[in-house]
């Protein structure tokens, strides 16, 4: 995607080479993809096919703790993929990133995965049909790619759409990471809001799981 996109967009609005600007977005996309695969396999697939999911729910943990378990395993695995992806992408960059990028990107990938894994867990709990799940997943991926600033800056969108998209928690994570990497500035609101949303969402997922299972 970036190979094609860089022929259209050579630089970001602030004159950063497109390959460098898009680096955090691509890393987040890889984090999302691996998180998705793990949540699908460990939660949705096991639940709808009645494979080992019910015995897990009978273990002596609250439903919120089980959700935290699904989140933890998926995020740890996705962070491993993020590290591998960063190594590969670095080799393709025209200019090296600052060393802090290799420290900050996994941290923000964690927040990004934390949010999206919660969304995937919600989908896995509320949907019972694979077709519904897949169509919702495609919509989610389209939103991630085009609605959170992964590939295209919000400045290219009409102003009101740009404002709406900028103020969703996923975009905040990516925008904040780019701000730190390219401009050395931090807006704590954009760090705290996604984290707080994720924590609240985790609790909500625990509640949804309890309702769904009637336990």
């Amino acid at each position: 995607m970036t190979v094609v996109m860089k022929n259209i967009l050579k630089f970001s609005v602030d004159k950063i080479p497109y390959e460098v600007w898009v680096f955090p977005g691509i890393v987040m996309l890889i984090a999302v993809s691996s998180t998705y695969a793990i949540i699908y396999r460990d939660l949705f697939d096991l639940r709808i096919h009645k494979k080992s999911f019910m015995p897990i729910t009978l273990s002596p943990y609250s439903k919120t703790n089980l959700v935290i378990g699904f989140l933890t395993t998926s995020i740890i695995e996705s962070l491993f993929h993020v590290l591998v992806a960063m190594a590969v992408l670095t080799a393709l960059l025209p200019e090296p990133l600052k060393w802090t990028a290799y420290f900050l990107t996994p941290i923000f990938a964690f927040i990004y995965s934390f949010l999206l894994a919660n969304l995937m867990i919600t989908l896995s709990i509320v949907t019972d049909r694979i077709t519904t799940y897949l169509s919702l997943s495609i919509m989610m991926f389209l939103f991630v790619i085009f609605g959170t600033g992964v590939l295209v800056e919000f400045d290219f969108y009409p102003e009101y759409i740009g404002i709406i998209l900028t103020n969703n928690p996923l975009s905040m994570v990516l925008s904040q990471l780019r701000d730190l990497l390219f401009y050395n500035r931090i807006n704590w609101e954009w760090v705290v809001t996604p984290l707080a949303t994720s924590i609240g969402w985790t609790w909500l997922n625990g509640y949804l799981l309890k309702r769904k299972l009637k336990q």
Partner: protein
Amino acid sequence: MEASITLKKVGKLIGDKTILASLSFGVERGSLVAIIGDNEAGKSMLLKVISGIEYQEFGQVFINGLDAQKRRQEVMSSIGFVSHELDLDPWLTLEQNIQFMGMLYGIDTETINTRMVQLARELHIIPFLKRMVEDISPGIVKKGMVIRAMIHDPDILIMDDPTAFMDAESYRHTWDLLLRLRGQKTILYVSQSLQEVEEAHDRILVLEDGRIVLDGSLDKLLGSTFEFHQFQIEFEELSEDLFKALSKLPKVKNATRIGNSIHFYGRERNVFFEVLNAASTAIMKDIIVKKLSLQDLMDAKYAKDGIH
């Protein structure tokens, strides 16, 4: 004896349909209790409610004296559940499935492995432990599920058709293990095999439309309910007059005609001789006398109405 499981007016609804209707009973610690009943009688739902898979709409379930709903996390460690469906993770080995569940219950790896190998040896599935579940036959998977349910050493085993999909040898190995645990663990199971239930039980619960219609040991159920024998006489030719005459004998109960055979029940064996006397002019081909079995008990007509 102390109750391991106690149900107090437990009711379960699905939509408008009553699945369990105000069930109250206790299960003694260390006893082996079989639940039987027709399809849709509520057997599996009863196991789900007791094991905490589904909550009841009404009443309370107590496990070792603790309210299963209010103190779920304490109660869950006491229960091992085997579902009817094969529900191991197909993308893991049998061993990984069992180890994962042991770890969920906070058991250390060494204890998990020791217990797993011991149980696997008893069930003769050691060679299958390292194989992927999707590559193993259903009977072996079911045995793996039995081990998984026991890996955290629960006091109570709740099993929905524990020997489903098993061949005769696997069935015997599984029951050898379960009968060895009789007295140490409370075992509550559902089975479609009445022969299995006749062979392995301290107590039988017969469920019908979400209600317990019969409760007790096989001898008690058959003794208190019927004390009947079942008779069948096949004639070379059974005329309508003869059938009517035999049916009207005072001690003959529920006489039915099947071709040239008369089938009936009697409280004492001497009923049979009265029938033989009454039918002495006709030529008889075959005679069958047997005590009532669980199968007869489960015959809906007699379970509901008894023999009149």
